[in-house]
């Protein structure tokens, strides 16, 4: 008996070493698979980028009228400028040639010139990116936390009164034009009750840097971020709720309970990680949809981001700017997709073994 115990102890010491070695080996294997997975995902993005460029090119060629106007916009310009653009994009050359030079231009981020803003399109766009990301980021953090939290609560007791209330709220949010919600909020909280500024990102009287500047931006951020947040909240909530309902009836939840795990542990340690994967996918894959919402929200609140720029481009029929925005936004969407898949694989390594 004594001998057996000491043997077991000795065995344990050895076992710890062996365990460490095993862990290291398992880690190396998974890293390799991971690298291969990321590389494959990146490669898969290439044809999509080509298609995006092809769409742009087709639009330029197929739009009614001379393609040169698709590269200038409906603007009063000089014949010299028209000739210059025609020359620059090789519009007199055969189509395949034109396509190649168009790809080359886009590859170097030369997205053309906006005659209306008198500025390079790429510069114009990248100036506006931070404002959009600030708005989207804020709204996304708030709506994810609230949406997932509400989804867990509602999904835990499906068809209870909390669930019904939250579901009705979400369905309403989901059915409301986001810009109209913005208009209503603006009417109430900026016009009738002058609590928040009506338009813009920072007030003219605010200092140009420091805490005063930040405070002014935050003050301007409240309404658009709330409206935009509600829009996402409904999506994230609906998804989380459904997935929690799915996961909570699965067998491994029974195992967790049969181990003696408490309700909170079952919900947050066992169910949520399994439910959240599709939610992350939905957030990531809907990045384009989110940017679409941002065009509308930014337009309502005069928020100087990509969306507002798009609105200005539409109303000036500034075609080069529209095309440029489409390319940049598509790139963001593709990046968001790849990132989503990478995060997915981090949480669920099963995908690496397919």
């Amino acid at each position, binding site marked *: 008996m004594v001998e057996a115990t000491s043997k077991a102890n000795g065995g*344990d010491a050895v*076992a*710890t070493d*062996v*365990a460490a*070695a*095993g*862990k290291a*080996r*398992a880690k190396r294997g998974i890293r390799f698979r991971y690298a291969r997975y990321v590389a494959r995902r990146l490669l898969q993005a290439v044809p999509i980028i080509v298609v995006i460029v092809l769409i742009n090119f087709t639009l330029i060629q197929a739009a009614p009228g001379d393609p040169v106007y698709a590269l200038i916009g409906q603007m009063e310009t000089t014949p010299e400028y028209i000739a210059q653009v025609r020359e620059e994009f090789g519009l007199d050359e055969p189509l395949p040639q034109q396509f190649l030079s168009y790809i080359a231009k886009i590859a170097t981020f030369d997205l053309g010139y906006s005659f209306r803003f008198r500025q390079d399109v790429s510069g114009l766009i990248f100036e506006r990116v931070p404002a959009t990301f600030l708005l989207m980021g804020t709204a996304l953090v708030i709506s994810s936390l609230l949406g997932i939290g509400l989804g867990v609560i509602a999904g835990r007791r499906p068809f209870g009164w909390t669930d019904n209330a939250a579901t009705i709220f979400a369905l309403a949010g989901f059915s409301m034009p986001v810009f109209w919600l913005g208009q209503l909020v603006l009417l109430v909280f900026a016009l009738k009750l002058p609590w928040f500024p009506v338009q813009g990102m920072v007030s003219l009287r605010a200092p140009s840097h420091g805490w005063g500047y930040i405070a002014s931006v935050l003050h301007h951020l409240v309404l658009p971020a709330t409206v935009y947040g509600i829009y996402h909240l409904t999506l994230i909530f609906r998804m989380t709720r459904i997935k929690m309902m799915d996961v909570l009836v*699965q*067998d*491994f939840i*029974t*195992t*967790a*309970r*049969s*181990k*003696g*795990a*408490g*309700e909170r542990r079952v919900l947050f340690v*066992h169910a949520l*990680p*399994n439910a959240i994967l599709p939610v992350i996918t939905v957030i990531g894959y809907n990045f384009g949809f989110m940017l679409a919402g941002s065009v509308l929200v930014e337009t309502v609140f005069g928020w100087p981001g990509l969306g507002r720029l798009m609105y200005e481009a539409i109303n000036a029929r500034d075609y080069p700017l529209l095309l440029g925005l489409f390319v940049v936004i598509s790139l963001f969407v593709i990046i968001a997709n790849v990132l989503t898949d990478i995060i997915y694989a981090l*949480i*669920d*390594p*099963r995908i690496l*073994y397919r």
Partner: protein
Amino acid sequence: MTDVLRIDDLTMHLETELGTVRAVENLSLRVDEGEAVALVGESGCGKSMTALSIMRLLPPYARFRSGSIRVAGKDLVTAPERAMRQIRGGTIGMIFQDPLTFLNPLRQVGEQIAEAVRLHTGAGRVEADAQALEALRRVRIADAENVVHNYPHQLSGGMRQRVLIAIAVACRPSLLICDEPTTALDVTIQAQIMELIDNLRHELGTAVLLITHDLGLVAQYCSRVYVMYAGQVVEDAGVREIFQHPRHPYTQALLQSSLRPDRVSEDFAVIDGQPPQLLAPPPGCRFHPRCPRVFDPCPSAMPGLDRAGEGRAMVRCHLEEAHQ
């Protein structure tokens, strides 16, 4: 000998939208220390619901109507949720039919075992990991050092069932409930898993409640049998008694069908007639619509579960009453 589980006159109903499902009715059952007991019946007869009642892992629309489930001096029917958490995985371990779906796909095997340890012993992370490794060795997993870091999808069916057993016995429970533990496995693996459960019973002194439809397993590994039909126990006897002298016509039919290995199936399709509806069970003896030896009292009066013959067998049948 002392009992680790004693169920007295338990009635549990499921209140569904379609009506009351009489899942368990007036069920009494006892498991003694270190003993292996079988609960046998067709699928849908309420045997899994009995197991889930013991663990109190029932759906929210389940209601206990009467009776008690006594484990370690507590009545689990009325025990507070906090006490149930101590029982689950601590005093009673449970393993299930399909080993893949019963493991969390996103967590390493070792973590899932260590969790059980930490929930019941207050052990630290390192200590719990060491115990998880030991539990894996206890269920005879070769290469346990590597397997701890594997995810469920990387393991075979038999390995997964071993992992589930490791989780269930990690805290050395006094009772292990096995709900159809081998149904989803290959025949060769089935034997290994049953051997393992039997060995653990001897090593750890854990009593086993085996829920199954496979009478072969019962003959090999259990000492006593409860036969369940339509939410009720219809026969309760020692293994030898049941195999040599089955008394209830349902038990007889079960035995006959299991003697024809070519026709054994999970729902004993060999017995004539539909399995009963627990939503609206037939009046009188629940088995009478399918019983080959049905006579006068059967359709109107429910027979009691009474002692029959010289042994200690208990049978719920009018035929036995007529004999006496």
